[in-house]
């Protein structure tokens, strides 16, 4: 399709209306900024932004109300993560007696925050609601290594997630209420 250019008037071809409107716009903004507080810059370290609901910041791991790691090391997030930022070391066959009826949890869980693109796929895919994109947006470190967050760091940054799932607790209670199988 050919779009016809509008014919310019003699005056317009002399650039005068352009000059005039340019001057008007710039002058108005100049005046606004100077005298009417029309400034839009937020002076970052002093002024902070209120992070809106649903913002996708850094992904962290959460614990449940019983202080148990919710993550079961299913590695779905590792699989789905587009930039391969997540690296999980599964626990292996050894049974950890300290975790009660928690069958599985990661031995190591690393997120490389330099690779993470904050897409939120990990949160979406997680079947255990164990990983959430929180509101942290300013991640800094002095080395690349420092930007690889390990399990302890992710868990302490993520904190406790107070949901109603309480999977392991409920399982334990259910099993205990059935005579066929009484966990010690």
């Amino acid at each position, binding site marked *: 399709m050919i779009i016809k250019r509008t014919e310019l008037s003699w005056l317009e071809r002399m650039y005068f209306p*352009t*000059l005039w409107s*340019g*001057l008007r*716009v*710039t002058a108005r*903004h*100049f005046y*606004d*900024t*100077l005298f009417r507080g*029309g*400034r*839009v*810059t937020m*002076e970052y370290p002093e002024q902070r932004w209120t992070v809106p609901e649903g913002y996708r910041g850094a992904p962290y791991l959460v614990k449940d109300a019983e202080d148990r790691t919710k993550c079961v090391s299913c590695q779905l997030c590792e699989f789905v993560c587009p930039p391969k930022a997540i690296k999980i070391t599964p626990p292996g066959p050894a049974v950890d007696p300290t975790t009660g009826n928690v069958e599985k949890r990661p031995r190591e869980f690393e997120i490389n925050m330099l690779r993470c693109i904050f897409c939120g796929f990990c949160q979406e895919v997680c079947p255990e609601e164990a990983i959430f994109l929180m509101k942290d947006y300013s991640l800094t470190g002095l080395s690349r290594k420092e930007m690889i967050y390990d399990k302890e760091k992710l868990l302490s940054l993520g904190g406790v997630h107070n949901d109603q799932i309480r999977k392991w607790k409920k399982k334990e209670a259910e099993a205990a209420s059935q005579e066929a199988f009484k966990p010690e």
Partner: protein
Amino acid sequence: MQALLDILTNHREVAMSLAKIVAVLAVLLPMVAYSVLAERKLSALIQNRVGPNRVALPLIGGIPILGPFLTRLGFWQPLADGLKSFLKEDFTPAHVRKAYFWLAPALALVPAFMTMAVIPFGSFLGRERMVLADLNVGILYTFGIVSLGVYGIVLAGYAANSKYPFLGGIRSSAQLISYEIAMGMSVVPVFMLVGDLNLSKVIAYQSDGLTSWLVFKQPVAFVIFMVAAFAETNRLPFDLPESETELVGGYHTEYSSMKFALFFMGEYSNMIASSAMMVTLFLGGWTLPFFGLNATPNEDGAIWMGLAHIGIFLAKVMCLLVVFIWVRWMLPRFRYDQLMDLGWRRFIPLGLANIVVTAVILFLQAKQ
């Protein structure tokens, strides 16, 4: 050392010239630095931003009201910028033509400084004329020198040995040549009116009150000169040689650190030189038609008068600098064909017509 001192004491004019050169540079360089700051601050204000407001000096920053005020103003920013230019890695890419690559930044800066030599920036201070070189052919000298400035840019484009700088260099030479003509034509009527090529004489001509300012007598010439000045200094809306969006910075793409800073300073020095030219040619130079400030002072005029004239000159230059800056944030870049069209098909004929009309009027006046 001794010989040098001898020359200075025995030849007063040499000593005074040296002193003036030093004084001019001492004013010019900070002006360059602060016009960069002005550019950043003004653009910030036009765009609802804050602009540089972080750099603080240890002691002065502590002074109660003044310190924070200067910091917010960005007053120390030029220091930081300068320091940064010095400290950055001076990187010379492997593929450049080394000698030219080193030469180009200097070539870009020097002509801008040299133009200042013929501009009368004041009347008299004591018995000393406030101009470095009171040449009879001042304007010709200026034109000669200004056109040298393009070599710096063309050389930079060539030396960088890569495509964007090369395109930038080519554009720059074409643009400068085109507008040099228009510019030259625009000043001819001025000198027809004044009858002399000496810039001091031009100012003397304009000292008869506001109506004698050439901007009112030759408005067309002024407009052409001003637009050409924008083009010659590669300022928006004519910054095609360096247009970041298409040429990644144009001729100085490959430059970094201090070499880049030299180009940068060259651009702003050019702006100042052009403003000074315009002030001299059209805006009455150091005169002001009030408070008797336009009386041509003589050799033993009061010192305060001489200082006031220098002040007036600087103030006029600064006003023009603000215009330069403002236009940059007001207008978008021209397309290359529009630029050429404006130069060759509008301003050159217009300049020619202006000469003819002026000549005819002068002829008729002379007849009466």
